[in-house]
């Protein structure tokens, strides 16, 4: 569920873009941009956005403050809590310690990109089924880590799940239910719900 965004354009639309514009960071090759704002192209959940920002703006702030993609949360803003976990080129990373400008030319995926329309991702379903949250603030980060963990294959047992989820702090301590949700997806092959629908 990508948020409404003025001037939003798909990849195909961008390819045909003819409006004169300032060069972006990657296009300038080794050229320098900033410290004043410059145009940067960010691909978020499959949609390309042109954002004007200073090089010091973190990916987290660009998503939340500029693109209204508020799934990634600002917990600690120093790489200690995992609430801002997103994927860059398919790898889970921390958006608070990533510069937005450094993501030009890479694919950013946030929790908004997990669901297929109104169809929740199996991990989201499992979080609901297992009450894997209390206040919910850490949940977007937990989900992005949990789905990545499935792809990485770090889900042998609870000890391994706990170790590979340790970068996502939950102050409500919903950990047992988060692990249960992950086990549910693991044991259903991660696609039971989708198969049931089709």
């Amino acid at each position, binding site marked *: 569920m990508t948020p409404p965004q003025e001037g939003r354009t798909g990849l195909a639309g961008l390819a045909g873009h003819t409006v004169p514009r300032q060069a972006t*960071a990657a296009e300038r090759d080794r050229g320098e941009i900033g*410290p004043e704002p410059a145009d940067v192209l960010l691909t978020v959940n499959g949609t390309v956005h042109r954002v004007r920002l*200073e*090089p010091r703006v973190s990916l987290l702030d660009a998503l939340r403050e500029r693109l209204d993609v508020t799934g990634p949360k600002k917990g600690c803003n120093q790489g200690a809590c995992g609430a801002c976990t997103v994927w860059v080129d398919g790898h889970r*990373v921390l958006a608070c310690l990533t510069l937005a400008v450094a993501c030009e030319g890479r694919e950013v995926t946030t929790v908004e990109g997990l669901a297929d329309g109104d169809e929740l991702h199996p991990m989201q379903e499992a979080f609901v089924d297992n009450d894997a949250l209390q206040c919910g603030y850490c949940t977007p980060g937990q989900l992005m880590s949990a789905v990545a963990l499935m792809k990485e294959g770090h889900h042998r047992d609870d000890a391994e799940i706990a170790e590979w989820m*340790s970068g996502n702090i939950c102050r409500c301590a919903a950990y047992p239910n988060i692990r249960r949700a992950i086990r549910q997806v693991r044991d259903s092959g991660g696609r039971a719900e989708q198969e049931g629908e089709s």
Partner: protein
Amino acid sequence: MRSFAYSRAADVESAVADVSADPTSEYLAGGTTEVDMLRLGVVRPRRVVDINDLPIAAIEELPDGGTRLGGLARMSDVAAHPVVRERYPMVTEALEKGASAQLRNMASMGGNLMQRVRCSYFRDGDRACNKREPGSGCAALDGVNRTHAVLGTSEHCIAAHPSDAAVALTALDAVIRLRGPEGERTVAFDDFFLLPGDAPEREHPIGHGELITAIDLPVLPVARTSHYLKVRDRESYEFALASAAVALGTEGGTVTEARIGLGGVATKPWRARRAEQALAGSEAGPEAFARAADAELADAVPRGMNGFKVELAKRTMVRALTEVAARTRGGTA
């Protein structure tokens, strides 16, 4: 965060030329330390040069049987690499016990070695810190220093080196490959980290703009029987209070070769040469292990709150040695 300019380097030569020629430029790799330091204002470059596109991320076997880790290889990729897992298990263990899965996906090997200390006085711009501001003093000496070092300290700095991976790499005698404006050179791993002495602001014997292009792991059969033990306040996602990387070779119960690194207790990734010497030729058992640990920590200088680390470091080393010795016996039985 203070503002800065940004550029993305396309090749190693131009990246090195750009940064070497400009004292106000800094490299940006994984960003896990750098972006944090930028936000804190501890580093204040005019420009960051993004090196993430440079082709120095490969992990490859060398003709002599060694293994080359690209400077931009991510911690997660190195930890998972089958050659690293098989030949240098303590490297994989140290990497996987560091940080979190997200940070390991971001952080580069070169950046891991260049990461700054976690001393809260270094990171707090208002407090005395000789590393951040030479000559300003060291607030940690008589401050909250429970996590600080007991080995390799000086009256100017007692910050512990935070890396886990570097502890295993120092035990391996890895070699660091650097690219500077005048070309390539190599530095022995132990030489790459300077003791604080009276110049704690100088952490590495490299010039501004020199770039870590690779870390070479030598052929070391004994490393196949190795282990990294990390002791910390919580079970995961935490820096070491004490850690030990141990590789051990035995023959008929006698130690033929020992490689030991200590972490969490020293101002640099600590090669425990005294312990290694004490072990050589000894019977691999609790007495020799305890003697070796005593020898290594003999000159430890505790400060206020970190006195417990002297005993903790010894026990950590002994436990790691005991674990590896058991594996050695299992392997030869």
